[in-house]
């Protein structure tokens, strides 16, 4: 065996300017390669989830609700049609959260892979953006598959319903960015997962107007919806998929809320990653 090719100083080949402009994509490529190891499981979940939810809650429970409310429907439509946009947004939020929180913990704590990335020309900001980009990729195909199942179940009424795909991804991105920043600060993840699952994700899912209009809730509980990206995305999704009435002002409010969440999440995530790597 020979090692005569082990050379030093490929000044021509190593291009730090190129890494500066494309670093986040290199991280995303590596992360996508990891994701491909269990891609069939992710796709299976992405298809099975909507089928199970739409059959059990949308058709099963929805059948009872539709009988009881009669032709007036819920918000003027079948319960399945009312419910589906919320589930679509929830799928995007759950997908991006999985793809931001777990890789962040793996990178900083479980396998410390972020430290090996940071010993190359990659910066903390690029690593955080790269992880985020991969999460967007997962959100994209999760939502597209979900939307396909919704369409197959007849839960899509409007011709512009497909626009609910980008709005759901937008909500997922906003929540995912913020969770990535939070995960970047974590030292003890066990308590975090208990708190996140029981006191954040569950209330958001239950109290964001997912299963019934937010206005049906007592006023003192409605604030949960207002601060929830799920409610904002659900309102936009319902507006797009079946014409749920949302004033132009509220459309802006929904977008601005999600936009602020996204910008803050990305800003703090980059900052936290950079600081923690330099510790």
């Amino acid at each position, binding site marked *: 065996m020979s090692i005569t090719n082990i050379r030093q100083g490929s*000044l021509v080949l190593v291009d730090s300017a190129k890494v500066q402009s494309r670093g986040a994509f290199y*991280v995303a490529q590596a992360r996508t390669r990891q994701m491909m190891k269990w891609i069939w499981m992710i796709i299976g979940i992405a298809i099975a989830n909507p089928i199970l939810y739409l059959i059990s809650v949308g058709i099963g429970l929805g059948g009872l609700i539709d009988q009881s409310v009669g032709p007036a429907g819920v918000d003027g439509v079948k319960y399945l049609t009312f419910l589906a946009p919320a589930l679509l947004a929830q799928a995007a939020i759950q997908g991006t959260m999985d793809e931001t929180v777990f890789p962040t913990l793996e990178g900083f704590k479980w396998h410390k892979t972020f430290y090996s990335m940071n010993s190359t020309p990659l910066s903390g900001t690029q690593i955080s953006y790269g992880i985020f980009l991969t999460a967007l990729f997962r959100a994209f195909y999760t939502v597209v598959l979900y939307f396909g199942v919704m369409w197959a179940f007849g839960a899509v009424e409007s011709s512009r319903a497909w626009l609910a795909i980008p709005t759901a991804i937008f909500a997922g991105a906003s929540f995912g960015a913020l969770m990535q920043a939070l995960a970047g600060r974590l030292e003890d993840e066990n308590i975090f997962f208990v708190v996140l699952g029981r006191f954040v994700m569950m209330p958001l899912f239950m109290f964001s107007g997912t299963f019934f209009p937010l206005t049906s809730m007592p006023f003192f509980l409605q604030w949960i919806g207002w601060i929830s990206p799920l409610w904002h995305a659900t309102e936009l999704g319902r507006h797009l998929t079946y014409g749920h009435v949302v004033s132009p002002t509220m459309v802006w409010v929904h977008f601005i809320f999600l936009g602020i969440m996204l910008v803050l999440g990305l800003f703090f995530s980059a900052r936290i990653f950079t600081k923690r790597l330099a510790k």
Partner: protein
Amino acid sequence: MSNPLISARGLTKKFGDFTAVNGIDFDVFKGESFGFLGPNGAGKSTAMRIIGATSQRTSGTITVLDKDPEINGPQIRAHLGVVPQQDNLDMQLSVAENLYIYGRYFGLPRKFVKGKVDELLAFAQLEEKRDAKVETLSGGMKRRLTIARALVSEPEILMLDEPTTGLDPQARHILWDRLFRLKEQGVTLLITTHFMDEAEQLCDRLIVMDKGSIMAEGSPASLIKDYSTKEVLEVRFGSDRNQSMADQLRAMCDRIEELPDRVLMYTEDGEALLEKIYAANLHPKTSLVRRSSLEDVFLRLTGRTLIE
């Protein structure tokens, strides 16, 4: 002599009230194998992280490849190969994939990296493990893969932080062989270790560190010559008698060190000293004559052993 690749003056790093690196000066030149020798907590890894442009100094100056790591971090890291203390490999990817993605982090062209992967698998003796998942590798294999990974960008300086800690003797020797080949090729190596045999085998020049400060600097041979005698006689009288014998032994040689389990006697001729001990009617339970090592240098400088 040419300009140093790394030059530090008064380099200091504090974490709150704790001073991890305390005003150290050193230069590393192209093609040399430079070591930081010291016990755990001596500040070796912190110094390495500052050189590697992943941790900022508190004060002092440092240039790496003529650049300031605080200002030109990514540009410096582009030409370093880093082997951290802990193998932070990607456990979900295969051996070859780990090398490939790391090469891409440097912005290296796909075709170049693919060719490089084959070359490095041969170097690390991991050709048969090419498609194996990293988590199935032994400790020694993971370490070799981490070293191969650091070479993917053909770095100007290869930095190894405790390269053989935690490995069994056989794995250590395989790794030393690989590193020695790199050294023979003129690769600039920067090594931290608390193993004196590793420092003696791999380093042309080293600094001995303790509690963040440099205690001595030189080649392994010159340090031994300056701070120790040619030979050392180790005698054991039993843990309850070692101390009581020390006064008698002290008069017989240049210097002694009392350790809990044995007494070290520093001399130019160990066998002659041993004969002298027997002639004085002192009968140690065991005795051993050996050459002085860097361990003895460290003991002389700090009054402590490297591994405590």
